[in-house]
């Protein structure tokens, strides 16, 4: 996010710059939370309207794979925390490694999720007018899968973006750019990745464990 390693000219000192970057990042995370707020509101409404269909459709999803995905994302979060710790203690080799582990967990999550999507495509549990899943024909079934694909799709886009940012940070860490005096970028990238994990922490029970 902030490529320089030294203090930008219009900031008083490094601490002010880091505080500014941190506040800016948290405000951005606030917008991400509100971006998903609309979908959570839609989910809340349709769940209260079509409760029994939501229960049926949710039981149909593969909860075990989702649990594994959650564990994978939490591991990714942990890897990023370690990367932040290594960056602060100027061990750029370990920083780069842990960032790559985090990117790996992101790709693993996407792969597992891709498998789920393929499964849904095959059996026709698709949103809106594409819905021709024979087993669940009660009212609102296509609504559950509309929300399922919208929420997990938007989240997967954020996972891809987060993995991209972490890969870019890993590439910069490999050239030894981060040290005690300049680890803002790792912290910001880490904050974004943690938020992606927090959003999934809420999506997982709402979609899979009704």
């Amino acid at each position, binding site marked *: 996010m902030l490529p320089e390693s030294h203090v930008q000219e*219009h900031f008083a000192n490094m601490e002010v710059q880091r505080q500014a970057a941190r506040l800016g990042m948290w*405000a951005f995370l606030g917008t991400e939370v509100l971006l998903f707020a609309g979908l959570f509101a839609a989910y809340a409404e*349709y769940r209260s309207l079509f409760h029994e269909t939501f229960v049926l459709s949710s039981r149909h999803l593969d909860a075990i794979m989702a649990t594994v995905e959650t564990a994978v994302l939490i591991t990714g979060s942990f890897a990023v925390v370690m990367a932040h710790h290594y960056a602060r203690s100027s061990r750029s080799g370990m920083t780069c490694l842990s960032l790559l582990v985090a990117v790996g967990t992101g790709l693993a999550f996407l792969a597992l999720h891709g498998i789920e999507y393929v499964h849904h495509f095959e059996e026709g549990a698709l949103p809106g007018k594409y819905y021709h899943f024979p087993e669940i024909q009660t009212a609102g079934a296509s609504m559950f899968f509309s929300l399922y694909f919208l929420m997990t799709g938007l989240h997967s886009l954020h996972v891809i973006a987060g993995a991209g940012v972490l890969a870019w940070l890993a590439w910069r860490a490999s050239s030894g750019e981060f040290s005690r005096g300049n680890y803002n970028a790792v912290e910001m990238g880490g904050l974004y990745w943690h938020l992606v994990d927090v959003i999934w922490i809420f999506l997982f029970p709402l979609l899979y464990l009704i």
Partner: protein
Amino acid sequence: MSPSALDEVGFPEHHYLNAGTTVRSWLLTTDHKRIGVMYLVAVILALFLGGMFALLLRFEHLTPGPTYIDAVTYNRFFTLHGVIMVWFFLIPAIPSVFGNFLLPIMIGAKDVAFPRLNLASVYIYAVGAAFTTWAMIHGGADTGWTFYTPYSTTTSTVVAPILLGIFILGFSTIVTGINFIVTIHTMRGPGLTWMRLPLFVWAIYGTAIIQVLATPVLGLVLLLVGVEHVLGFGLFDPARGGDPILFQHLFWFYSHPAVYIMILPAMGVISETVAAAARKNVFGYRAVAYSSLGIALVGFFTWGHHMFVAGQGVFDAGAFGVLSMFVGIFTSIKVFTWVGTLYRGAIRFTTPFAYICGFLYFLVFGGMTGIAVATVSLDVHWHDTYFVVADFLFIMVGAALMGFLAALHYWFPKMFGRMYHEGWGLVSATLIILGFNATFIPQFLLGNLGMPRRYYDYPVRFQSLHVASTAGSTLLFFGFVIIFIYLVLALKYGRAAGRNPWGSRGFEWDTSSPPPTHNFEQLPVFTHGPHEYQLAPEVSNAA
């Protein structure tokens, strides 16, 4: 006016405008002042484009039947008028132009917190504008700027590019909002406590909070309508159990706070200009500062008053009705405080002051009708009629645009170092205020008569009021043309304004006009609040 004559009156030789004259120095600038000027040009273009569509609509209404365009074209025109005016003029108008230009100067900072991000917001605005212009050329949507489903998802007209244009523009607003919040929190000058911040900075802070918290929900809603229109995901499809009122909830959760994004900066401008015109401290600084925050936060609780007749539950209608009344008191505090500031002041009638009077009249009139429309039972008759159109245009064109014009005239010398022609300023101000009344008072009466919004054809009994309103709108148009002419002329031929033409005690007047690239020769130390006119004139913030 030979250049040398200009210099001794205090026109600095090198300042931010001639610090680099190549096009590249403008396009890649990270100087918040240049970004403010670039936004000013874009915003004025949007104003004239949107205004042109408004005139086309008004001329169509001269006669009940088809006057010179058909129904579909009319529907496209009012959609484009709405989209351009709301997203391309009103929302960026004061925050992106004057917020960008003045915020760092007012808090004694060299630049905003993330200068490169600030430049990125200009390019995001440009890309969003390009998409919308492309869609406009290809006919544009005929859904109205509110995009109510299921019409917006089933219409055959081009909806997706306009949604994409506004979606991209949303990022420009979010980035500007984040920039301002971080700048105000972390880069205030030495000695500048929160309670010494100029009231314009408080207003921009409140606006930035709304920009950051509200725009993402708009982004999501436009995304959902676009996905629904292109792929048919069925989230708002009634046959599949979708709920059109859910769309309205999500849309108005953004759009009502967006109304405060438009009016709050104008209130900040008026707080500054009233204090400068009356040469007196603002009557109750603390109340005005906290009411800016109050509007920013309580403004989020009131979106349901747009949906009283949309099929909303009775409980929600009551809750939103009460909360809408509470948001009204912050505006009334501000109005009473501005009038109180005039008490025992030293008022000089200048063009900004003319716009202040216009602003106060329109804000009180529009605010009161706004409270009336938020009264649940009265709204049943008024909803979706010309009464509501006149009410929000009183606030948008009346108050917000008057605030923009007051800011433009008050800070023109600071931005460009030259004074505009005072006589023409007063002429155009009266023309605009009269033209505005002539345009929108008839529309209030049309609303009472029951003339619905977005009507291409209308029953004959409304014609006389429509003709009056169209006449007023031409008057309004000429007022804006005159302003544009004498301001552009003043850029070249205006007399040099010097450091502080208004004798104002605002912080931005401590630096030269136009200010140097890094805003100050040496960073100011803040010893007192803004607009402390009881101090002797020579006490200023010199370091």
